[in-house]
């Protein structure tokens, strides 16, 4: 019975592990093949003539390179902005009792569930009217709606695990709330900030709906959109495209793998206390 159970467990895991990794491995292998080999049939699992040409092509195409820098800039800026404002907000929720607190918190979490697609039309018209269409600033600002609610939730839960006494001593000594937050809470909340930051980066880096609508001019394009245009404009060159895919994957996958243990713990903490 126990043996049967074990076999069942491990084979379930093995099957899904294959489903998870096989597509990635296939894309990885294709990215090192010359273009004609990439679509050869029957497919070759490993490249016959491995080459870095696909990567060189992507990394020297001026449009794609610009978009790569734009993506990095927008993701880092929107992560920083959202973590900063969510820290203030999360701190208010964690340390104060005020009118409408619960209502406000559930409204914020409810808003998080509203998908951004629904808002793209009004956002487009609104940004067109204030002249912010096709600007990186518009992306940084609109990306906030994807991540602020989650960050407030995570950071509020993190702050609540920190004993109040730590700041109280400082407050009695005449320290202001903001200074207490900055000098006492922030330094010991780094694990919480790390999780919020990684998740924010992941959401910003991967976002496609907002940038394809709000900024599709070459100089303000993001990488995911540039890749999409890349396949729609030319015939699909799978060698180039798979190389682009892997470049897009590197930052988030590395971050996630590197910090996954803390991630699960952090999310669990948030979930349990939420």
């Amino acid at each position, binding site marked *: 019975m126990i043996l049967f159970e074990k076999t069942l*467990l491990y084979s379930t895991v093995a099957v899904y*592990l294959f489903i998870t990794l096989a597509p990635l491995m296939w894309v990885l292998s294709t990215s090192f093949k010359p273009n004609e080999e990439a*679509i050869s049939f029957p497919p070759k699992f490993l490249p016959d003539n491995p080459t870095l040409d696909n990567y060189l092509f992507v990394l020297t195409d001026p449009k794609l390179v610009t978009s790569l820098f734009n993506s990095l800039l927008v993701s880092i800026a929107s992560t920083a902005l959202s973590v900063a404002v969510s820290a203030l907000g999360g701190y208010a929720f964690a340390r104060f009792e005020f009118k409408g607190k619960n209502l406000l918190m559930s409204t914020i979490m409810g808003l998080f569930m509203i998908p951004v697609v*629904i808002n793209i039309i009004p956002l487009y018209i609104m940004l067109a009217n204030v002249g912010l269409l096709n600007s990186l600033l518009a992306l940084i600002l609109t990306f*906030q709606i994807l991540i*602020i609610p989650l960050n407030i939730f995570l950071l509020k839960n993190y702050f609540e695990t920190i004993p109040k006494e730590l700041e109280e001593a400082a407050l009695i000594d005449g320290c202001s709330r903001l200074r207490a937050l900055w000098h006492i809470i922030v330094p010991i909340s780094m694990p919480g900030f790390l999780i919020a930051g990684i998740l924010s980066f992941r959401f910003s880096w991967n976002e496609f709906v907002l940038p394809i609508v709000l900024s599709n001019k070459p100089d303000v394009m993001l990488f995911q959109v540039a890749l999409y245009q890349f396949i729609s404009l030319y015939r699909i060159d799978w060698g180039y495209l798979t190389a682009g*895919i892997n470049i897009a994957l590197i930052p988030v996958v590395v971050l996630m*793998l590197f910090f996954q243990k803390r991630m699960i713990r952090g*999310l669990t903490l948030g*979930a349990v206390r939420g």
Partner: protein
Amino acid sequence: MLQLRTQKLQPYLLLLPALSILIAFLLFPLIWNIYLSVHDVSLTTILGGWKYVGIKNFSNLLYDPDFHKSLQVSLVFVGGSVAIQFFVGMVLAVVLNQEIRGSNTLRALFIIPWTVSAVITGFSFKFIFNDSFGVLNYGLGQMGLNPVAWLSDPGTVVWTLVIANMWHGTPFTVIFLTAGLFSINPLVYEAARIDGATKIKSFFYITLPLLRPFILINLILITMWSVNFFDLILVMTNGGPLFSSTTSSLYMYRQAFEFGLLSKGAAAGFIMIGINLILAFSYIRLFRRQ
């Protein structure tokens, strides 16, 4: 006295930056959507001078067979996606919670697809599912099976999308339910075991009831994400062949940004907000009644 008053204001001041961003870019557009849906706004009249047209945008939608078709496609896509992701996610979360060697490493590997963007998932699967040179059909051929027209058969294409969405979305359910499982005190299982409960019994009588709040939120989130899912579909099929994989969210996008009918898109968006709300509240009621 003054100090007391600023004390009271403090939490609101701390919340001000976050709230003003959310109000400007989330709440305002959401409400403004209603206004737009009863006016005539197109890409050419975007800067103002909008005519009030009453419910014309909505009646146009009502008589548009493509919109009806998109609702049907959405129904299949959402139903399939949610059922599969929830089932597979639950099985994996529970399996990984057993005493399995390397379960932490496995969790890390299972998360990867969720870190991959929907667009990238779409590209990858478009390649793998390719009718003529795709590796999947090659694999089927090697096993003696007939190749499937994954992306060009109108009857199959939605399910192809469901599979790609499963790959991309299931890890979220795994993480989320794992968080739920972690929150259950292991002593509860111990007590049940001593009382002679089998593993299957303790799953149905302990795990499931205790997981209920997690299951509810998980179902609401994956349902909404599926209803509004659109980037992966745009990349993989662009709604085709014909309209066979145009979900309502893709329909809305195309009305607005391909045909320039912004207010017709807004009306479709309004209907989708309604669908989202109805679904969320039905889940909540369903879970409360039990």
